[in-house]
């Protein structure tokens, strides 16, 4: 391991821990907002300060759906960060090529895929509520990242098997 990557690894752990805390706070705030929205009279036009509901009648439902998807996204991001932290711990322990890490990467790939699907759902809701027929949320990079993560999970599975073989070789 080079000095730069060792430093990067040392920094990554606290950064991810901070991100986990921030993400939990984000999820809690979104959940609280969603709950409060049912008890605030004249939501959402009163808190916003202007009337959008008369122009877009499905606005309240759309906003609540998007917030609910946001909470779901926060839960998914939490699982991604926890798994990433576990992978980093195995790298720090000097033993990253294990089947557990391959499974973690596979799960992360599925989670990123789920996040992308959620993003498309949010765009579809926004399009249905505000601008019918206009969905421009597709981005190529996240889907490429999903593919790369699946490939990486495959590489880790193969690497873990090779390492397992080598462990019993004299």
């Amino acid at each position: 391991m080079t000095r730069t990557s060792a430093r990067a690894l040392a920094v990554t752990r606290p950064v991810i821990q901070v991100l986990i805390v921030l993400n939990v706070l984000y999820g809690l705030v979104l959940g609280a907002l969603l709950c409060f929205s049912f008890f605030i009279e004249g939501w959402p036009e009163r808190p916003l300060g202007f009337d959008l509901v008369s122009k877009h009648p499905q606005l309240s439902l759309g906003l609540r759906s998007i917030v609910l998807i946001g909470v779901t996204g926060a839960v998914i991001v939490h699982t991604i960060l926890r798994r990433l932290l576990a992978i980093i711990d195995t790298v720090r322990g000097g033993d990253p090529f294990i089947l557990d890490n391959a499974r973690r990467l596979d799960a992360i790939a599925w989670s990123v895929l789920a996040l992308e699907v959620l993003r498309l759902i949010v765009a579809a809701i926004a399009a249905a509520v505000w601008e019918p027929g206009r969905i421009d949320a597709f981005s190529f990079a996240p889907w490429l990242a999903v593919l790369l993560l699946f490939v990486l999970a495959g590489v880790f599975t193969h690497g873990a098997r090779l390492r397992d073989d080598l462990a019993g070789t004299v």
Partner: protein
Amino acid sequence: MAIVVHLDEQLHARRMTLTDLAARIDITVANLSILKTGKAKAIRFSTLEAICAVLECQPGDLLAFDPALPPGE
């Protein structure tokens, strides 16, 4: 594992310890112990060559196949 390692017998016949052999073929005692106790999954030709050279024996003197034993993974 149906492969039986006779390293202990070969060492005993030459009054040599595992530590002596490990020092002469430059392999750790821990690894040789894995081989001796039959826990190894594979053996490198280079290791086999080095052991045969020091013990002046053939690979067949060190390894045997016993069909009565259960097969390994």
